[in-house]
């Protein structure tokens, strides 16, 4: 593993079993992610983007292969250690948002910090800042079911950002945003990437986002079909 690797994914395979049916979602993915990269994973629907991000986020167990994060193997951690890893090291934005229904936008954005044990004042200050950056401050007191899909998506992003992780894994973070909010989110993520060196890996179909990435990984049928480092304008 070379210096500066944040992630090292080796021969990663994932087979889902639904009753008799087996679905091979990933069939041998190898991928190194370097410190400070802004990487997009693109590919058609069902190509395994979410699966790959879940495995990188220690949210599921691979069928085969290894995932290393900062020279620690994380694919075979026990439940407690993987929870700790998710809590302290990785920010994850779900494709399905996965906000907690009983909590307001502000409380959702503050939730990871709450789990970390921050006081209400501290965590809500940080969460509010994250919501502001995404132009969501005025919806702070709304519950998820009172928000549009795009608004929920931005709360989900704010939840990951508020926790100040060094790595953010985001599953189609701009999928439901109009061009204005989409651009705002992209700008914000780029700024965090440049100014704070936060490593981003996200899946996307969004050409607006693809314009700005420093690296584009194409996934098809659970395999990487191209991996290019792009020169940014």
């Amino acid at each position, binding site marked *: 593993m070379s210096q500066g690797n944040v992630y090292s994914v080796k021969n990663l395979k994932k087979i889902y079993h639904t009753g008799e049916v087996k679905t091979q979602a990933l069939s041998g993915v190898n991928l190194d992610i370097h410190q400070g990269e802004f990487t997009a994973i693109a590919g058609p629907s069902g190509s395994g983007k979410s699966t790959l991000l879940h495995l990188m986020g220690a949210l*599921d167990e691979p069928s085969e292969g290894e995932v290393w994060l900062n020279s620690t193997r994380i694919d075979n951690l026990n*439940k407690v250690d993987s929870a700790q890893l998710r*809590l302290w090291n990785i920010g*994850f934005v*779900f494709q399905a948002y996965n906000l907690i229904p*009983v909590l307001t936008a502000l409380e959702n954005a503050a939730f*990871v910090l709450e*789990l970390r044990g921050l006081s209400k004042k501290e965590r809500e200050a940080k969460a509010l800042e994250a919501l502001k950056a995404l132009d969501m401050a005025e919806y702070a007191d709304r519950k998820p079911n009172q928000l549009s899909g795009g608004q929920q998506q931005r709360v989900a992003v704010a939840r990951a950002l508020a926790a100040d992780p060094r790595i953010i894994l985001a599953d189609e973070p701009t999928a439901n945003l109009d061009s204005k909010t989409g651009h705002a989110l992209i700008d914000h993520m780029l700024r965090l990437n440049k100014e704070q060196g936060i490593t981003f890996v996200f899946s996307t179909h969004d050409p607006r986002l693809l314009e700005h990435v420093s690296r584009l990984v194409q996934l098809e049928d659970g395999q990487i079909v191209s991996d290019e480092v792009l020169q940014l304008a």
Partner: protein
Amino acid sequence: MLTLAWRNLWRQRRRSLVTAGAVGVVVFLSIWYYSIGGASVNSLYQNLTETTGHIQVHVPNYRDLREFQTLLIRNEQSVRERVNATVNQGEVVGVLEVSALLSGEDRSRGIVLVGQDWPEQIRRRFVDQNLSAGRFLEADELSGIVLGESLARALKVGLGDEVYAYAPGTDGYGAAAYTVIGLLDLLDANIEARSAYISLPAAQELAAPDAVTRFEVHFPEIRRVDEDQGVQLISADLKAALPDYSVESWRDLDPTLVQMLEILGPMMNIVNVIFFVLAGLLVVNTVYLGLMERIHEFGVIISLGASGRKVMGMITLESVLLCITGAAVGAVSGLALVARLAQGFTFPGLQEYYASFGMNPILYASITPQQVFFSVGFAIATGILAALWPASVASRLEPVEAMRFTA
């Protein structure tokens, strides 16, 4: 974690109410059920002990004696004092039963005239339940008589009429005239046709000065079979204190009832098991389903970095809070109901049925602290156990699986 749990409960008041409500209903029903079940068994006990007393004192071998004279406890005062000395709570009632011919204007009947003391509490209950017209006897009233309605009809007499009693061959006057002052409507028609009450002094004047045929010891406070041990102890004491008399507890007086109560015990236990299985299912179902639909939410929390154990703790805490609140409300309202029913209640429609067995249709609900404790403990324990299963499912699954989980 407490704040998490509390917030979940408070923000989902409806859901919380349903769960706490199920626990509350189960506690309420258990308490109600226990108190009614207890009431039915105890009413047998009360019916018997109200009519016979808990303990009776007779002359020895009284069952084999036929002669009125030989049945008499002659020195009433001194024996009464000896009984009183041993039995310090309870009411000692002297009874003098006199076989007599009772005549109206032109009809007569052979009956047993009962002269007895009426301690206030016993008198009040007797009057409330049975007196249908007129008034009841005063303690030392010499010329009043209270008759069963059907006896009065047989004698063709009514309130204010004179009746004549003949008790020849006794130690008293042997004959007396009484005025009918009250009528009784008794549950058992046969007994009603034979019932005639006068005061103890009146009976003594008629047939046996300073004598009674038995003493009854009543413990009006003891209304439950399971409080009966005390009676048995006092009965034993009394046996020792009165070796020259026959002392019997209600158990000796009515062995059939004792047997019946002994069969009822295990029967109640079987019904109890069925009842609590059903009640438990209600709690399990509500708690379990309420949590299964939240497994996705628990998966989210775990995926954000909460440990499975923390989520387990949160769910358990939520359940504990809900169950305790529900159980408390259920227990308070259940006990309030029992307190009301303890004053006496009837099963609508079953009055006749009870009466046909010569039983008092008025039941008195009662419950022991152990039963309350069990009802509450059972509901809480079931609720918490039912919560642990979904909690462990959530914490066992990979976060992604938990978030996809559908019950």
